[in-house]
């Protein structure tokens, strides 16, 4: 079978993404409209009468049929305009471009931490399965999966920020203005999310590495007299890298979701805080905008992971 060019593959995948984006934003929009509670009441202010609330619905176009409202939003998006917050009038694109780097930095830190701790743990556990090292790693991994991120976050704040005063307890700084300050602010939330990632990486890596190491060609390699280190680095890890890329793509998506809670604990103005505020106030352009962004990020991450997998393992047909 002839291989398709990467450009066509990417184009095809992006085309497939369109219905996903449509479906996701439509479902979220429908959910927001189904949930009782109404932004018109908020917009109308503290002293509102029924008549005033009806009037407000009219002014902001909230009295139009559901599909018309969604259509209007979609028409704007097609023209590259994510529209603006109903409540404060800030451009949704502005809010997102300000919030996204904060979230991205936390996820990046969490991912790096998860990998630099998770990979060695997985490897040393796989070398001697069922040894005490493996058992310890398994225990730490189970803990990492079991401990809720927000709980760990609060413990970290109490110990490291409030008691020792090493790292700030709240807020975020812009990476482009002061990278070091930005990382200092993002470190604790990063660690809180990384714990789960570390556990996941270690467990998955151990599993797939064990499978590779027990295969026949590894036995042959042993027989040829290759050292364990060379087998591990030259053959073992290369073979599990496909699994690793898949784990990473799943992790990034999960970590993005985890920021919703973690950002609240650390008062970080990122995408998670943004969508929570939008949802609570029923400010649907904000929610729609964030969902739209998240869907695109998830699709991109999956696409990159798939491309990388195919590059490492040509057997994977794109």
């Amino acid at each position, binding site marked *: 079978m002839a291989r398709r060019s990467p450009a066509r593959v990417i184009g095809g995948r992006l085309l497939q993404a369109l219905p996903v984006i449509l479906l996701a934003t439509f479902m979220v929009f429908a959910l927001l409209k189904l949930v*009782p509670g109404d932004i018109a009441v908020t917009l109308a202010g503290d002293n509102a009468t029924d008549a005033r609330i009806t009037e407000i619905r009219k002014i902001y176009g909230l009295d139009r049929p559901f599909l018309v409202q969604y259509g209007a939003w979609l028409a704007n998006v097609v023209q590259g305009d994510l529209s603006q917050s109903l*409540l*404060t009038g800030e451009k949704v694109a502005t809010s997102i471009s300000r919030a996204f780097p904060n979230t991205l930095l936390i996820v990046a830190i969490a991912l790096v931490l998860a990998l630099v701790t998770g990979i060695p743990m997985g490897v040393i556990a796989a070398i001697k399965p069922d040894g005490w090292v493996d058992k310890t790693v398994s225990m730490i991994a189970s803990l990492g999966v079991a401990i809720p991120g927000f709980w760990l976050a609060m413990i970290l704040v109490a110990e490291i920020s*409030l008691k020792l005063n090493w790292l700030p*307890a*709240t807020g975020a700084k812009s990476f482009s203005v002061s990278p070091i300050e930005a990382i200092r602010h993002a470190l604790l939330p990063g660690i809180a999310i990384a714990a789960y990632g570390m556990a996941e990486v270690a467990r998955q890596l151990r599993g797939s590495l064990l499978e590779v190491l027990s295969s026949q060609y590894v036995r042959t390699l042993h027989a040829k007299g290759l050292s364990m280190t060379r087998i591990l680095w030259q053959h073992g890890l290369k073979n599990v890298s496909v699994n690793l890329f898949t784990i990473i793509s799943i992790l990034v998506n999960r970590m993005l979701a985890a920021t919703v809670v973690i950002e609240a604990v650390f008062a970080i103005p990122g995408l998670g805080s943004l969508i929570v505020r939008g949802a*609570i106030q029923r400010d649907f352009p904000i929610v729609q905008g964030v969902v739209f962004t998240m869907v695109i990020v998830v699709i991109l991450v999956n696409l990159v992971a798939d491309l990388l997998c195919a590059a490492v393992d040509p057997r994977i047909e794109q």
Partner: protein
Amino acid sequence: MTQTTRREVMALITGALAGATLGGDAFAQGTPKRGGILRISAPANPSSLDPATGGAGSDHAFLFTMYDTLTEWDFETLKPKPGLAESWSFSDPTTLVLNIRSGVTFHDGSPLDAEAVKFNLERNKSDPKSNIKADLAAMESAAVTGPLQVTLKLSTPDAALPGILSDRAGMMVSPAAVKASAAGNVARTPVGAGAYAFVSWADGEKIVIKRNEKYWKPNRPYPDGIEFSIIPELTTGSRSVTAGQNDLMYQLPPRQKAIVERASNIKIFNGPTLYVFQIFLNWAKPPFDNIKVRQAFNFAIDRETFVKAALAGLAEPAYMNLPKAHWAYDKSVAGLYPHDPDKAKKLLAEAGFKDGLPIELVGYPDQDSVQRQEILIEQFRKAGMNVRFLNAPIAEASAAFFGAEKRGSGILAAWTGRPDPSLTYSLMFTKDAYYNGGRGAVPPELEAAIKESRASEDIELRRKAFATVQRLVMENALVAPLAFQFELVAMNKKVQGYRPNLLGKPKYDDVWLES
């Protein structure tokens, strides 16, 4: 070099008195000095920085810093006092004359004169996006009768107006800025005449303002600027103060007080506010269409215990919609509903519910609300009422109760108070008011008394009118007030000169920072 003026001495004395009476450590120590940035943790993103189009009660904490009001209020009693209007008078019951202070300018340099005041009042009254039309309902027209004099013609006598002009309706926006902006939208580009001028607003993140160097109050404000970090999670907000990222946090939850106080560098101020926890009743449908049931409901509540158990003692038991410190408080009404479960049972029996009465109330699902509900459920149970709460998020619950659905017989919520009490009463206890959840009829003598409370500007006459209003509301048991929440403000010891106020919406008039 700053000189202490007579005004400042007065402020210090008032502050000290407030400290003594309100139980806070309000003594300003040392001489106020200029400089520094006050960093505040604010619990909510403003809905708008335009006083006319905004809606949330939490906006004032920002608006008051950037906009000065035509009248101001006394911190302790909320009696109106001169602001941008240095004096006012009713030449007859339907004519209010405002004399504007001379020499005041907006942040953009344009003059704050009679024309500007007229422009604002008319905008607030008739702009389609204005949320405060109702506040100025009685105003028929505003006319410039001198370079610094505006005369308001009223359709009905409205003595509440001076109080109303201390809130959104009296916040003056630069007409030049409104005219220059697209569709007159200044929600994100506020230009007022307040102590601080707007610098930037990043939604849900930060609001930055800087000192208005041409502010009309001498030597004010002291700090170079204020930075509000918007932190909706209140425990996170208080951590930001104890960990030193912020200097001050308002709306500290009572349960956090003990935790925050453990930090040695933090002090906490508290004082009563108009913010009252209460159960709004739907008296248009059973069981609360029966006055005996409503009265029994009120007798069943042990407010003292409620304050101790649910609010860590940091509240004042509420027997009506005004706290003790308010200028219109009437002591005699406070004795109407002592805790008396036997009396409640007797009233229920008379109403035909001898074997107990199931009641469904609407409530909120957060931890603090549920705790309040549990305490009340137990109190009602002892009086023969089997109360069940239908909980939903705030927006949903209040829309369901006050809107068309009419869910539940009552809602455990709160009333944030208004600068003039006549607003509080007319917004809840008139036939078509939104906060009269059932839109049920109101005793005609109550409607008349509410009207009467706005008829005269004489404060003694108004006090009497409000006494009647309060008595009628409580005798008819149209609401079950529970407790006035204290304003709790945590700050590090650098912050000086802060004073709590009865409205419970923070103002930073005399705040300065120790270096």
